[in-house]
């Protein structure tokens, strides 16, 4: 008798995501689905508005990575204006982007995942959160709060506020960086470097104890995609698209991001509001719903596909990371998203340190002015969770006729589904569900740090409601926890 297990993060918490697991006649896991239950319709309701408004509107897609939307949207606007923005404006945008990477990755590592990594996958669910961390490891919690704050502070210094700053605009940015502010950033850097060193040690210690998890938390072949610099370095603001397969073979070496539609298709499924992007030259189709065209984006993908980070400390750490996988092959387990995130924080800190020493960073010329010159604009950036595309079609007055957004987390949709299946197969035996299994499945999703408000943003633990339903519809067993 086949059965269905529904893991429902109780819609009453956020109504954002649910998981269904299908069991076969023997009670073994046959299939699993990760459902995204949030829908806000930005692509459609922006039609008829001006592209000038888009940075401000699309930032409101996500409060955790608003800067990514601000950047992708402003860059799409730059393309519509047909201008090159002043060099200092580009440096300032990059600076804000690195600030965001630090704050978002710090949130993911310390506030959201550290409770699992440090308190244990099977620890008391009532304590497995930031408050539990404050109680048990107050110093670690405080450090995490301070590192996130460093990133938020950079955004605030540049843009006036840490969430949704109205600062980057088509053509550049609104305000230059003052010398005082530059010095303020310099003063904050040493502490941030100290904390990331500590975080790397913490992760490595935790990883030693979690080797079994690392084997099944999304450990499978897939493609990886992200931006790299034209010469193959780690990149988060511009550059070219690279796609690498699970054996390390480069499928796309330097694809122009504005032609993303040629290599990215978007499938939809009736059971999720989140679309299913896939690599078009490979198929979407086949025996199961995650198909050959499955690719991963985000920190793990970025550190897998680049030839080098390009800064000394991050490069050293990257060499250690690469030891996790046999020669030249990408690291396959999503468990190591955590590690990749910390490497990216280190990289961002080094880049911030380098940028504030640049004598041109305080230049006053930060905005180019123009009118609509192109009717289509594509803007791309590497959000903390992966590559983000904004594509706008406007009329001569700049009124939007069509909008397409490809959100970072969406591109991990197929892989997240596969991860749920892998963990469920490993830990669910004969349809039996334990609290430990629930948290493991949850953590598997959390490795991707899914930005589910760009879809459904499940911050923190997802309370779950699991129902095992027999093929005839009767409820076999039920379990709730959160």
């Amino acid at each position, binding site marked *: 008798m086949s059965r269905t297990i529904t893991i429902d993060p*109780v*819609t*009453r*918490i*956020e*109504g954002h995501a*649910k998981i269904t697991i299908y069991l076969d006649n023997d009670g073994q896991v046959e299939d699993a689905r990760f*459902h*995204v*239950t*949030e*829908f*806000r*319709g930005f692509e*459609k*309701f922006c039609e008829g508005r001006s592209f000038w408004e888009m940075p401000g*509107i699309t930032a*409101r*897609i*996500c*409060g*955790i990575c*608003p800067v990514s939307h601000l950047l992708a949207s402003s860059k799409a606007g730059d393309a519509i204006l047909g201008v090159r923005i002043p060099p200092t404006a580009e440096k300032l945008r990059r600076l804000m982007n690195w600030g965001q990477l630090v704050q978002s990755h710090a949130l993911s590592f310390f506030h*959201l995942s550290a*409770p699992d990594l440090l308190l244990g996958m099977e620890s008391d*669910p*009532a304590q*497995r*959160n*930031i*408050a539990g961390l*404050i109680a048990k490891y107050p110093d670690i*919690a405080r450090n995490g*709060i*301070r590192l996130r*704050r460093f990133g*938020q502070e950079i955004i605030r210094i540049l843009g006036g*506020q*840490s*969430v*949704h700053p109205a600062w980057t605009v088509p053509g550049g940015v609104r305000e230059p960086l003052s010398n005082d502010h530059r010095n303020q950033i310099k003063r904050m850097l040493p502490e941030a470097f100290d904390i990331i060193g500590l975080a790397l040690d913490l992760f490595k210690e935790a990883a030693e104890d979690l080797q079994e998890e690392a084997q099944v938390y999304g450990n499978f072949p897939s493609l990886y995609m992200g931006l790299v610099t034209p010469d193959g370095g780690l990149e988060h603001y511009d550059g070219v698209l690279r796609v690498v397969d699970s054996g390390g073979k480069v499928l796309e070496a330097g694809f122009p991001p504005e032609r993303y539609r040629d290599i990215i298709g978007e*499938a*939809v*499924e*009736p*059971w*999720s*509001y989140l679309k*299913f992007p896939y690599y078009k030259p490979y198929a*979407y189709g086949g025996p199961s719903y995650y198909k050959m065209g499955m690719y991963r984006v985000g920190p793990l993908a970025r550190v897998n596909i680049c030839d080098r980070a390009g800064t000394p400390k991050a490069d050293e750490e990257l060499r250690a990371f690469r030891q996790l996988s046999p020669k030249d092959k990408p690291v396959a387990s999503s468990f190591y998203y955590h590690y990749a995130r910390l490497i990216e924080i280190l990289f961002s800190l080094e880049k911030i340190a380098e940028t504030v020493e640049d004598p041109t960073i305080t230049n006053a010329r930060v905005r180019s002015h123009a009118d609509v010159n192109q009717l289509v604009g594509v803007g791309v950036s590497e959000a903390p969770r992966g590559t983000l595309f904004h594509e706008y079609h406007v009329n001569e007055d700049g009124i939007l006729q069509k909008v397409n957004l490809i959100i970072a987390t969406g591109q991990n949709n197929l892989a997240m589904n596969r991860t749920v299946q892998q963990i469920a197969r490993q830990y669910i035996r004969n349809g039996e569900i334990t609290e430990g299994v629930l948290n493991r499945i949850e953590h598997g999703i959390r490795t991707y740090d899914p930005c589910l*408000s760009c879809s459904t*943003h*499940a*911050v*923190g633990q997802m*309370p779950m*409601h699991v129902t095992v339903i027999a093929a005839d519809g009767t409820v076999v067993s039920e379990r*709730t*926890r*959160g």
Partner: protein
Amino acid sequence: MRRTTLQVHESSAKPAGAPKIRLATAWLGGCSGCHMSFLDLDERLIELAEVAELVYSPIADIKEFPENVDVCLVEGAVANVDHVKLAQEIRARSKVVVSFGDCAVTGNVTSLRNRLGVDDLLNQVYQNGPGSVPRGEGDEVVPRLIERVLPLHQVIQVDAFIPGCPPDPERIWAAVSALLRGEPVVLSADMRRFG
């Protein structure tokens, strides 16, 4: 700005060992930016943990909205059937419900879809891919969207409002610390702006 006169507890001077305030935060149709601004309280979060217990929140691991909540901050507008249900539970189980941020207060960006019909919206957003459009029907795996996105106070009674998109951390601290002291939320003029 409406004032709440509900007393959360008797006095601001909490003797050691006194029960902590039961604080909740919830997230409806929003971007999580209000919650991020809440986290921007930074080290004041540690202070807060001393006087308040976070009994329900997207950043904590709690199974369902608990009974006897003293104060609940609600981010986001009401956009689907699950939000309606959660809002009603929050109201039934909380002494003070706060509309937290512009989406909850006015509908804000989340309500920009209101000029379009739900069917139209779903068809157009999902029309291009292979596969079929998620409708939020039948098995209710994905919750059905309500026709018009509503601000929170049009669905349940709300006791206090914190505007801002997001409200900045100072404003949040002013409101939350007043609520924790059992005082009415009185925000100064510069803390009452939208956006």
